[in-house]
Structure formats: C-alpha cells, structure tokens
C-alpha cells in the first residue's frame, strides 16, 4: 500500500494532501489509512510536507535515497547493455509490434494512449 501511495505522489506534478492522494489511488483506502501512511513516509524522510490550508500537502523528497539511487542508475545503465538479472517490464517493439499494439489498445475503453 505504501508503494502505491508513494507512486501516486511521484506521478503527481505538485504536492498532494491526504484527500488528493485518496482520490488518485486505484484501490479504495480509508482516509485515515492514507494519513497514517503519509505520516509514516514523512517520518522516514521519504516525503516532505508543507502546510496547505488546514491540511498537510506531501511531496517526495527530491533526491530521495541519494547514493542508493545513483548506484541503482549505474546498474540499470549497465543492465541495458547486457540484459541479465533484471526483468524489464516491457521489451522492445518493432514497427509491426507498435501498429498491432495500438490496434489492440484502440478497442479498449479508457484514456488516450500517448
């Protein structure tokens, strides 16, 4: 659940209040649960917050885990050259694949596909 809340905040352009987060989550979560998760993440130093009206608005700390993130990027860059341990969510598309994919998804309800 925590991961989902964090992902939501990272995907947002601006700081979000607990109410905003709750609205943007795909899974139905009680307001109080969202507040708990947010304050826990804040206590861990993952999120920073500012007063916004009567509530706190949260955003991810810019360069969150600093060193770990930098090292991770190095590994991923190396990984891009020699596909090894890390499974990638999506693999490469050929032009034919792209056409087929757009056709498959075009029949689906939901928002526009970039």
């Amino acid at each position, binding site marked *: 659940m925590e*991961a989902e809340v964090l992902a939501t905040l990272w995907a947002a352009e601006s700081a979000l209040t607990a109410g905003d987060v709750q609205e943007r989550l795909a899974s139905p979560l009680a307001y109080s649960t969202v507040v708990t998760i947010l304050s826990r993440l804040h206590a861990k130093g993952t999120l920073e917050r500012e007063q916004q009206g009567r509530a706190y608005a949260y955003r991810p700390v810019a360069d969150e885990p600093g060193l770990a993130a930098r*090292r991770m990027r190095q*590994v991923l860059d190396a990984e891009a050259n020699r596909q090894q*341990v890390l499974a990638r969510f999506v693999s490469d598309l050929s032009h034919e694949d792209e056409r087929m994919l757009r056709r498959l998804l075009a029949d689906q309800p939901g928002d526009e596909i*970039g």
Partner: protein
Amino acid sequence: MIFAVYLPLMMPALAVPVVRWVAARLHPTWASWLVLVSAVILGVCSTAALGLLMLAALSVMRLFARLGHWSPAEVRHLDAVHLPVDVSASVLLLVFGVMTISAGVRRIRAIVEAYRMASECPDGTELMVLRDDRPLAHALPGRPGRIVVSTTMLASLAPAERRALLAHERAHLAEAHHLFVAVIDVLAAANPLLRPLTGVIRYTTERWADEVAASHVGDRSVVARAVGKAALVAKSLGTATLPGIAMAATAGPVPRRVAALLTPAPTNRITPMLMSLTGLCAIVAFAMTTGSIVSSLDAATDLHRILELAQH
C-alpha cells in the same frame, strides 16, 4: 559406443520445439515450470552423454586403462569406442563446460550485485523511484527485493495502471523469476540446442507476472493497458532499442502479452489442461525428457559393463 548415448544429445532438438509450443499455450505458471524442469533434464542428460563419450575416448588411453585394469584392445574389440565421435564429443564437452562455468559465474555475480543494491536501499521502502526520462520499471531481487521505477514511467500511467505495474513487479520478486531466467541461460550455455528456451522463459515469466497483476487488480484490461502504454512510451522516447537485438517479423512479446490479457484468463486447473491438445503435447514433452534420462542411464550402464568385460 552404444546407440542410447546419442539420444540425450539429439533429444533437445526434438523436445525444445514441443516445449516451446506447449509453453505458449499453457497457463504461464505451469509453462514456466515446464520450461525449467525440461531444460534442466535435457541439459543435464546431454552433458552426461558427452561425458560418457569422453570416458569412452579416455578408456583406450593407456594411462586410464592401467588405472582401471582393463585392456584398451579389448575395449576396442567390444566396439565401445568410435574415436572420431568420442574425441569430438570430448572437445564439445570442454568448450561447453567452459561456456557454462563462465555463464554461471556471470549470472551469480549479477545476482549478488542486485542483492547488494537492494540491501543499500533505505530500510522499509519497497519502491525506489528514480528521476529518469526513460520509462524504467524493474524488479530488483534481494532480501527484501525492491521495485525500481522511473518518474517517467509513473507519470505515463493512470492510477489503476500504476497499481498493476507494482503488482507485476512484486510478482517477479515473490516468485523469484530471476532464478528461472538465470538457470535457463546457464543451461543454454551447456547445450546450444536449448538456446530458444531463453526467450521462452523470459516471455512466460512476464506473462506469469501479468496474470498475478490481473488477479490483483481484478481487471485484465487495466494490466493490458499498462503493459501496452509502457511499451509505446518507451518506443516513442526511442530509449528501448538496444543494439544487437534482431527485430522479429512476427509479433514480438509485448503485443502477445497484451493480446493474452485482452482474452479471458487461461485455466490453471489440471484436469481441463491435461484433457486438451496442449496437455497431450505437454505429456509428449515430458516423455521425451524422461526418455533422455533413461537413455543416458542406459548408456552409462553399457559403458560400465563393457569396461568390466575388458578388465583383466
């Protein structure tokens, strides 16, 4: 030597296409296990067969004959040795052996490195977000494993799709899919005939994670959209193409995954699976792999008997 020894060597050529065909139709969890188990059996048996041929070649060398107290002339007389075949088998065994060990070392190093990375992540954070223009999403194995995604990936997806993505990566970690892939890669080094299975196992484990995500989110089309969008974003940013990867003319893995998610869930129950043509072929594949165990044991017994007969 004995006919039985050639069977395990040729069996991958026969069994791999069958395994491949079945794996594309079976529930991805079963498919992954089928690929893993049959590759292990085929790989181990074909290596054992090469080993037997090498033993046959060694058996006529004076040094080994003296050690085992048998007569090289007698071994030859019993028709146990065809030197050109046995010597080529020995060369193959040495070449594949070196390749296997180096592949194994590479995989183990990469996994150790991943574990180290994961342990360096802050405690209690399952999700690591990287500020990156590329749409990245990876499962980083470790104890505990981490999910690594880029800001671009998160921003490209709708809330439900983000949830699907997280569930997908979590499934990779929970089911240790990196081990499936690593084992098949190492076996492919031991026997190049198994190489097609490296692509198959990557596909079936992705499908497996897709199915887990679909049942977690409760809507297959959401997962389909997440996979499809991520691939299209990667394509439009021109980041996903790596040198040296041939573009297949037929449908690549991503459209096949999306298409599979847009159809009803594959059955996970054994009875209907075994009753189908796919199940029948799975049994054929299983019989073939078992055949290679039987024949390599057969060949080993044969060689042993011949050497015993040739003993003074």
